[in-house]
């Protein structure tokens, strides 16, 4: 089992629109993989299929040896898939530390009535959770901001907090939906480095949706390109950069055609 996630011929339709069409896709263990494509290509839809927000119509997704087709988001998360969102979705009226504590749900097991009877197991679990949450807060660079309301954090910190919340459940696979959107070049570089560290140091497999090509080309080992819900190319960054179908999808047929045309002209000349 070298692949952590294996999607075979996944199709998702909304009425007449096929958002993801016959997509096969795999994520090797301990890798950083990206999905790119023009707006509306079905990238986020595919994310939502993996995390159980949408139920796929055809095909199957196998994670870590188990099918996740038809499972609810909380079950899938407990199996080890965590995600962040394109437009940050923190629990905005909860503090930073509370956000992380909620993210720890998959690994907390004490009964709900524990606090009422002051059960020792519950108390110990809560104390440990608090320690871990603070560690995680420091890890993502938010030291000392635990009591800040998450909505009052600066934009970059919110992105980081969202990643911390996703990490809190000890996931095996982390899905990042445009983690550098709206960041300046310096923040983008920091985040890129951070994602690489996640894989190298903690050993988390990362699936990335990203528009910033520098980020994608810089850290991905494998890139899948979607257009109109279909996979049009897959391969390492170098290959994707020169792929004519990819250029066509991004720039349009005319542009790609004229690019090729001009090449031919040069050749003729």
């Amino acid at each position, binding site marked *: 089992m070298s692949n952590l996630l294996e999607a075979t011929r996944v199709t998702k339709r909304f009425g007449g629109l096929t958002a993801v069409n016959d997509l096969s896709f795999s994520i090797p263990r301990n890798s950083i993989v990206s999905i790119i494509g023009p707006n509306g290509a079905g990238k986020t839809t595919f994310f939502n299929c993996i*995390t*159980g*927000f949408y139920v796929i119509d055809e095909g199957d997704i196998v994670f870590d040896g188990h099918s996740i087709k038809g499972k*609810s*988001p*909380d079950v899938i*998360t*407990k199996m080890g898939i*965590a*995600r962040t*969102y394109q437009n940050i*979705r923190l*629990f*905005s*009226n*909860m503090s930073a530390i*509370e956000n992380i*504590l*909620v*993210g720890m*749900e*998959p690994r*907390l097991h*004490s009964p*709900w*009535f*524990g*606090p*009422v009877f*002051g059960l020792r197991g*519950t108390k110990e679990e*809560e104390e440990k959770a608090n320690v871990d949450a603070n560690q995680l807060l420091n890890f993502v660079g938010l030291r000392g901001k635990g009591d800040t*309301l998450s*909505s*009052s954090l600066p934009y970059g910190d919110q992105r980081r907090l969202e990643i911390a*919340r*996703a990490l*809190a*459940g000890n996931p095996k696979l982390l899905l990042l939906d445009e983690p550098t959107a709206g960041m300046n070049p310096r923040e983008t570089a920091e985040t890129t480095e951070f994602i690489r560290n996640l894989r190298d140091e903690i050993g988390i497999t990362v699936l990335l949706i990203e528009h910033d090509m520098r980020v994608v080309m810089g850290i991905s080992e494998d890139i899948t390109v979607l257009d109109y819900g279909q996979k049009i190319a897959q391969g390492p960054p170098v290959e994707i950069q020169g792929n004519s179908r990819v250029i066509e999808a991004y720039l349009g047929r005319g542009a790609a055609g004229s690019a090729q045309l001009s090449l031919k002209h040069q050749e003729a000349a």
Partner: protein
Amino acid sequence: MTRKEWSHLIRIGLLMGLAVLVVSVIGMVEKFNERALIVGYLTLGQLLLYIPALYAGYTSVPAGEHRAMPQRLLGGVVVGLLAVMPVILLILVASSWPGIRSYFVNISPNMVKILTAGKGVGPGIGLLAGEMAALGLIGAAIHLIPDRIRKPIVTAIIFTVGFALFSDVSLNIANQLFARKTVRVLFGTKGITPLATVIVFVISLVAASLWTWKGREAYARRQANMSSEQAKRSQRIATTVLMIVLLTLPWVLGVFLTDVLDRVGIFILMALGLNIVVGFAGLLDLGYVAFYAIGAYVTAIMTSTGNLGMGLSFWLAVPVAVVAATMAGIILGIPVLRMRGDYLAIVTLGFGEIIRVLVRSDLLKPVIGGAQGILNIGRPTIPGLTFTTPQHFYYLILLACLLAWFISGRLRDGRIGRRWMAVREDEDVAEAVGINLVITKLLAFAMGAAFAGLAGSLFAARVGTIFPNSFELLISINVLCIVIIGGIGSLPGVVVGAFVLVGLPELLREFDEYRMLMYGALLIIMMLVRPEGLWPSPITRREMHAAEENAAAVEAEHSSDIRAAVEG
């Protein structure tokens, strides 16, 4: 004065004038006039007329704007006079055209007499106008007094009026402590004597001044310098004192007021339950009365010695009632799990109605008595005592409330509390971080229902007879209002809310017909002035605070943008 300033004065003045007109036309002034505050000097009805004028004067200058003193005072007089105009018109119309009474029942000769202080139309109008203008002037002049003097005075006045309004409470206590003669010196049949007014005012003024000048700072300093050991000890002392007060309260207050407390306690219990559903988990439940009814009916059937009952012990009935209500909570919860916001509210509303209709129906009449209800509900007994008087029940209800408070607090601070909060914030994301929505929501419904079931059980045992009428939609609305006005998600807020919305109306029983009107007005005022509630939870306070902060930030950004645009 500029045109803008004038238009503000006219608006405030006429708005308050309209308020005075409305309370007069709907008969509030006349009705409230029966309640004296200061015997022979001030009635509640008069206060109703005076407050709008005072308020108009107080707000005659928009907050944050500055005016020279004469302008300010002139503005106060103007709004005071404007505030009296509509009601002067009313007096003139009412006195020249008695037939108006067939259109507006409450415009009676007696009302005109009250408005004109019994001095005839001409002099009466003059007097009223003079009073209102003076009050507008005072309202405006309040701003001129320096803070450190104004604060104690205003506090003392408000306290004195409150003391007079709820003189029933202190009268009941005084009756048990002093001889009848002494009591008569201080209290009238309704309201307090001028002597008592002076005493109360002076005492509260001294206390308020000391607090404003010295106490607040000293308190803050001591609070800051306290070691954790000392803090813990003072906390313990405070808790002990509170417990002693709570335990002796029914004997100090007497039977009538303890009965009021019991009523409030049952509503506190229910509101603590609804607070879990609405406040913690954010699920709007409008059919909450159903669980209360189930708790009450189960207890009634099990303990009644009438022909419908089984005559079992109350202590056996309580757990069954709570379990039955909890089951009902889960049964209601399952179908509505996928619903959100408005839809959830409507479905739960329907559920509440279903229970009410069932209780009233002929179908179930052989079991639960239909419209005739259930009589002879058994009283709880412990060896040597049968719970019969309000004082007995007080302890039972107090125990239940403390238990509910404790459970609520512990659950809120634990893992399930965080899950509820997360579900309230964003259901989808909550599910995506691994929260099982089904269990989390059902737990909220179940806990809420359990508290309501317990409340219903206590209610049935306390009143001894229950009818379908006791379980109307209005109870659900009432409990919801308690949670909202107290401060959503806040435990102390629930208690404060219950005292304000259940306790106060009991003390102002004679004005029951205006109860709903006051509720409505209170809700609107609260939403405008203090949307976070009377005693908000730290979370809600944070929310509101964050919203303000963000708004301020956006505004600052805007204005700098505008400035940049102008300069650029």
